[in-house]
């Protein structure tokens, strides 16, 4: 029972905070609400017996990526969306082709709802009846990561290097050598 209450609390908090991210006109508040949503998701990961993912979620997302976003919001002096301009140029208010995106978003929601209705109820993990329950320790995770997924792991380091060089090149002022 307490685990169901915790689930609904965390899920509700994640959805509410995400909706507020979309609802804010000031990007500063959006970033703050997104940190709340990430913390709630970390709670859900702990409930799913993935504590290391939860910790990585807090450290990488809330700690690193969101701080990066906050830096940029403050660096650019966070221009807010203009209300009058919003009314004029809003995609839902544009005629014809501009509404395609909104229609696609509606179709996506319908598809997700349809797919979820087809899902069979799965009350407990597969194999928990036979006693094969896995508690994923960091040790086990590391073994799988470095044995079966070693190539993907190394490729990731190249990706990060490319992203780092790309970010430095893109954000550099023109004319500097």
């Amino acid at each position, binding site marked *: 029972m307490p685990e169901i209450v915790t689930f609904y609390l965390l899920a509700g908090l994640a*959805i509410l905070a995400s909706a507020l991210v979309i609802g804010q006109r000031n990007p500063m508040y959006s970033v703050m609400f997104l940190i709340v949503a990430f913390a709630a998701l970390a709670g859900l990961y702990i409930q799913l017996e993935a504590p290391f993912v939860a910790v990585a*979620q807090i450290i990488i997302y809330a700690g690193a*990526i969101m701080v990066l976003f906050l830096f940029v919001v403050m660096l650019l002096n966070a221009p807010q969306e203009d209300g009058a301009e919003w009314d004029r140029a809003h995609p839902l208010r544009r005629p014809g082709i501009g509404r395609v995106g909104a229609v696609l978003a509606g179709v996506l929601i319908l598809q997700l709802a349809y797919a979820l209705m087809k899902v069979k109820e*799965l009350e407990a993990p597969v194999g928990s009846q036979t006693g094969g329950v896995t508690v994923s320790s960091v040790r086990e995770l590391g073994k799988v990561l470095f044995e079966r997924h070693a190539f993907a792991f190394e490729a990731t380091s190249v*990706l990060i290097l490319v992203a780092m060089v790309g970010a430095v090149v893109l954000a550099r002022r023109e004319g500097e050598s």
Partner: protein
Amino acid sequence: MIPLNHYLIVSAVLFAIGTAGVFLRRNLITILLSVEIMLNAVNLTFVAFGRYRGDVDGQIITFFVMTVAAAEAAVGLALIIALFRHRESLNPDAFTSLKW
């Protein structure tokens, strides 16, 4: 034990919120934040499926998604800074040089 469906529904709702944000907001930073919401919704699906299948592959791919999200945020924010220097605006409608 909470049924798998509940996690999938939460994930679907989060993904839909992220999609709506990308389509509706007129601010490049908020659009990037919406993309992060979508990535997190997918992460939740991966971890939930991994948990109910009883292996750790769902968590492994979550780490890769997080890494890609970090790289995407770094490059995306660098692009936003470069664009802001050009036009003094974060409205995506201000950048129409490539429009035909």
